[in-house]
């Protein structure tokens, strides 16, 4: 794949300078046969993660954060998932990034906006893509899932599941050595009596233990990018904070490039270097964690503002409650309005310029360097001259 890239236009690289992973204009649509329309789960997302930093994606469920990372992992193989855009990934020790969606054009004629990707072609591409991605999964990327109890295979012992990853990473190891290392990893994530745990099955373990195993399993792959999808969901409060402690610790010791997905601002606070807020399949705000998460900082997307004042107590993981606090509901992703997606729920439209919100969707732009936001409050429309208010 690396050979294929030099031909590619490079602006992408200049944009995502030094990024290990640079996602550009990512779109993941699902075809809804019953409705005969596409569901735009991810609609032109732009993200960049730098070496060793932790990016946190926040947003309500349904905002498309999970689908985004799954697209990166190439786990949205289910036809009729239609993926497009660019995912630039720079493998450790390489100069040139490679496009993980390499060759998409060859299979599916695909223009930005509503996809015309013929399903059949798309399936062919997915096959091809899957082949490429399987190589990277568990090596370049590793993932931690929510609901660890279900995410671990009930029929295999902890030892088997962890050592499987290790042997895949370094096949030269013997089974015995792999198990030994697995044991070491389990110890690293502070699983008590790791030696004994090796032989246990997930159903013998508590939720917290399972999550530790998950984390151990992910880290054991020594991935270039670690992705944690709602790592604390499905655990009760006390366990949650312990898991977070662990993740902080790992972040400090291992310095793995990490993407964390959460709807929980608390989690974001503890782990994030940078934060990207997603809404309706778009990134609406993206910037350094302190700025974005600081309620008083004046550059802020109304949605982020809403989230900040809707921070749930660490214990409360019920989505309903959180949604309640922002009036209205996520728009139907298969029938999106013309203007700003958040318009109809927005309580802080720019005075005097409300018409913009309903007329046209703002781009994701940086009023100040390094902090992008998608809102007319901070951006000016080409039609109006002068600087941002």
């Amino acid at each position, binding site marked *: 794949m690396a050979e294929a890239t030099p031909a590619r236009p490079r602006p992408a690289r200049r944009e995502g300078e030094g990024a290990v992973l640079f996602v550009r204009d990512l779109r993941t649509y699902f075809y809804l046969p019953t409705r005969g329309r596409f569901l735009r789960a991810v609609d032109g997302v732009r993200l960049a993660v730098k070496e060793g930093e932790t990016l946190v994606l926040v947003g309500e469920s349904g905002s498309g954060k999970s689908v985004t990372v799954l697209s990166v992992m190439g*786990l949205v193989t289910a036809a009729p998932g239609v993926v497009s855009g660019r995912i630039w990934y720079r493998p450790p020790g390489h100069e040139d990034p490679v496009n993980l969606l390499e060759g998409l054009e060859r299979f599916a004629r695909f223009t930005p906006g509503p996809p015309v990707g013929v399903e059949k072609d798309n399936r062919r591409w997915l096959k091809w893509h899957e082949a490429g991605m399987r190589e990277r999964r*568990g090596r370049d990327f590793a993932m931690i899932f929510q609901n660890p109890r279900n995410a671990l295979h*009930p029929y295999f012992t902890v030892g088997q599941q962890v050592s499987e990853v290790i042997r895949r990473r370094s096949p030269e190891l013997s089974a015995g050595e792999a198990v030994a290392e697995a044991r070491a990893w389990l110890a690293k994530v502070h699983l008590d009596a790791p030696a004994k745990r090796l032989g246990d*099955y997930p159903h013998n373990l508590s939720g917290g233990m399972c999550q530790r195993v*998950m984390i151990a399993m992910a880290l054991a*792959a020594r991935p270039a990018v670690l992705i944690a999808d709602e790592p604390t969901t499905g655990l009760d409060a006390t366990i949650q904070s312990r898991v977070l402690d662990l993740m902080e610790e790992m972040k400090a010791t291992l310095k793995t490039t990490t993407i964390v997905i959460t709807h929980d601002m608390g989690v974001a606070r503890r782990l994030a270097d940078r934060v990207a807020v997603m809404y309706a399949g778009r990134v609406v705000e993206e910037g350094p964690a302190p700025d974005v998460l600081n309620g008083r900082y004046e550059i802020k997307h109304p949605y982020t503002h809403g989230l900040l004042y809707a921070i749930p107590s660490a214990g409360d993981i019920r989505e309903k409650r959180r949604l309640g606090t922002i009036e209205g509901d996520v728009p139907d992703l298969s029938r999106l309005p013309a203007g700003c997606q958040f318009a109809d729920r927005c309580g802080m439209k720019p005075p005097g310029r409300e018409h913009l919100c309903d007329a046209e969707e703002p781009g994701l732009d940086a009023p100040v360097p390094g902090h992008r936001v998608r809102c007319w409050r901070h951006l000016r429309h080409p039609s109006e001259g002068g600087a941002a208010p």
Partner: protein
Amino acid sequence: MLKRIRRALLREGTRTAVLFLLVTMAMFVLLNLAPGDPVALYVNVQNLSPPEVEAVRHELGLDRSLPVRYGVWLSRLVQGDLGHSLRSGRPVTLELWRTGWRTLLLAGSAMTLTLLFAAVTAYLVAMGRHPLWASGLTALGYVLSGLPVFWLGYLAIYLATTRFHVLPLMMGAGAPPGNWAFFLVPVVVLGLGNGTVSEVTRHLRTHLQGVLGEDYIRTARAKGASLWRHLYKDGFVMPLSSLLANKIPYVLGGAIVVEQVFNWPGMGRLTWQAASDRDYPTLLGVTLLAALIVRTGHIIKEAVQVAVNPQLAD
């Protein structure tokens, strides 16, 4: 794991024993509810005077009370003696022995075919591979399940004879050497025509889709591990083993008809013959053996599933 299996076998074994007792009782009561005079089986009663008939009845112990007869019969059964066939006079055990294994051969192969067909179809559908083949096979399964098995048998013979000029019958002593059709055709007919194919396929498909949707499968893929390794146990071994156990009765039933059509000298024909002659001991024997086979299927299933799924252990 062996310990788990042993425990499971023990549990299943005892249950089987209990069931067996129940089955025998049920059978025995049922048999004795029947109208008509069993003596008529031994002898053309037209030519006997009533006292002679009584003599015969006594001779055969048919005049003793039900519980007594049951007790006697059961104790004999325990020693593997099922009595003598009223028709041929041979020991029922012998009759079952010489026919049983043939039926097992037929039903076993047929069952394997059924599951194979279902597994392939379900896999293709669930994974969305070769959609054409997938729907084709599914449709075929439905059609075959909707047709009477003996009609399929006749069709098979008709095609075999007219198109390929072979007669797919179990010919035994008179068989032309190397005639494999006699084995394959009945197996295919029973395997695909026993009326359960579509159901088995559907069951397997939904199950497989469910498993594919499980989080741990996603985890496996995220690990880049081989999907099959994480799929086969829960996706195939478990459902197939239970389907195997559950569908045995159907296949055994179908075997009765198929054996009749293809002159397959197995338990099915024995059953039919015994049924038409009111051959009590044989009927009992057959029913018991059938029940035994079914239970064995369940025991195997139990062992397999416990071996595969650690959660079942406790």
